C-alpha cells in the first residue's frame, strides 16, 4: 500500500507518495531530492539527519514519512535566505567549525532550533542542543565557538 503525504517543507507545500514503512529521511532524500539532510547511522544516534519538525529538532531517520503529513518541516536547504547565509551557517564558516562537513547540516539545524528559542544560550543550553550530534572529525571546540558567535551576532552583541 502507498500513502499520500501532504506536507510543508521550507515553506512550500509538497505532495508525494510513500510506503508506510519509509522513514522521513528516505522520503526527503530519495523521493523529494533534499540531499542536504544526511544519512549516517540510520538508527537515531548521530544527528546527521536532523531536521526541524513543527519547530523542534528531530532525527528524520527514526521518524515515519507518514508523520510528515500536515507537518511543517525545515531542512538545511531552507535555512539560508536566498543567497544570504543564515547567521549560524556564516558563523560555522568564520570560526572554521567545518572539517569533513558531513555532520554540518545536522549541527546547523540543531543550532538554528536552539537560537530560534533563545539568542542568550547558556553553556548548558549549547551542550544540550548538540548532545545528539556527533562529529567524527571531533572538532567540537570550534563548533561551540561558532554557536556562541552566531548567538552574539543574532542578538546584535557583536
Amino acid at each position: 500500500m502507498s500513502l499520500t503525504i501532504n506536507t510543508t517543507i521550507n515553506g512550500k507545500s509538497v505532495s508525494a507518495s510513500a510506503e508506510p514503512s519509509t522513514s522521513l529521511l528516505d522520503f526527503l532524500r530519495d523521493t523529494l531530492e533534499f540531499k542536504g539532510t544526511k544519512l549516517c547511522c540510520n538508527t537515531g544516534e548521530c544527528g546527521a539527519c536532523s531536521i526541524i519538525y513543527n519547530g523542534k529538532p528531530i532525527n528524520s531517520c527514526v521518524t515515519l514519512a507518514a508523520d510528515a503529513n500536515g507537518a511543517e518541516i525545515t531542512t538545511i536547504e531552507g535555512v539560508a535566505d536566498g543567497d544570504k547565509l543564515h547567521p549560524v551557517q556564516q558563523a560555522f564558516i568564520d570560526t572554521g567549525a567545518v572539517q569533513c562537513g558531513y555532520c554540518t547540516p545536522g549541527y546547523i539545524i540543531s543550532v538554528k532550533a536552539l537560537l530560534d528559542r533563545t539568542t542568550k544560550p547558556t553553556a548548558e543550553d549549547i551542550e544540550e542542543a548538540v548532545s545528539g550530534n556527533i562529529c567524527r572529525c571531533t572538532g567540537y571546540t570550534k563548533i561551540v565557538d561558532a554557536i556562541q558567535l552566531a548567538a552574539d551576532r543574532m542578538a546584535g552583541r557583536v
Partner: protein
Amino acid sequence: MDYFEPKTVGEAVSLLAKYGAEAKIIAGGTDMLVDMKYKEEPGCLINIKKIPGLSSIQENGGSLRIGALTTIRDVETNALVRDKLTVLWESSHQFASLQIRNTATIGGNICRASPSGETLAPLLVLEAKGKYVSADGEKTEPFSSLFQGPGKTSLGSKGLLTAIDVPYPAAGSKSVYLKHAVRGAMDIAMVGVAVLVTPDATKNNIQDVRIGLGAVAPTPIRATKTEALLRGIPLSTALIKEAAAMAATESSPIDDQRSSAENRRWIVDALIRRGLTQTWKAATGKEVA
C-alpha cells in the same frame, strides 16, 4: 505491511484484536523504525499518534496523569514533574539526545520494556500505575506486573497503554536517578539506579525507602530485600555499605558489549551508596554518620 492511523482508542483496540500478534503499535517511532529497518516489518503497523487527548500532563489530586503520547521532552520540561517527581525529571533529562526526547514518548519507553529503559526504574520507585484499554475494557494496574522480560509486557499485542498515574511521594522525601554510562548523551545505561528516601518526623530514622534498578535484570526491578533492610532504622555508614552489597546481590545482570555482569554489580553497589548518601542528606540536612 498493512498500515493504520486510528483516530480513537476504540479503533486502535479493534485493530489489535483483529491483527493479534502480527500488529505492532508505533508512537514516536525511535525504536520501531530501527526494528523495521534492521529486523523485520510487522504484518500490521498501527500509528497511534493521530488519537487526540493522549499527550497531556494533568494534576489529579495527589498525582500526575501523563498521557501515553507525551514526549520525553514534554515530561522533562513540565514544571510539576520537575518539582514533585524529581527522579522522573532526572531520568527524562538524561534520556538519549534532545532530538530523540522531542520524538520518543513515555508510553513507548514503558511498552518497549527494555531492562535499561530510562524512565522505568524511576516509575517503579514512584509506584506509578498504567491505564490500559483492551477489547475486555479498561483497567488500571501497577507497573510491577507489567514487565515480564526484555521487550515483553503483560499487555502483549492485546491492549493499549493510554496514560500513567504517578502519585506524588510523601512530603519530606527526596529522590535521585543515577545513570552510569560511558558517554553523557546518547548512551544506554550500563546501570541505572533510582532511590527515594522518606525520613520520619524526627529525621533520625528511615520511614520509607524505595530502590529501583535498571539494566541489571531481565526487567527493571525493585530491590525489595534491600528496602526491607533499611526501613524503620537510622541510616549509618555501616548500614549503607550493607544495603549496597545486598542490592548488588538482588541484581542479576548479564555480560554484554556495554559491561560485564561483575562490573555491573560493582556499579550497583557504588550507585546505591551514592544515592542513599545524597537523598538522606537532601531529606534530613544531615551527613550520614
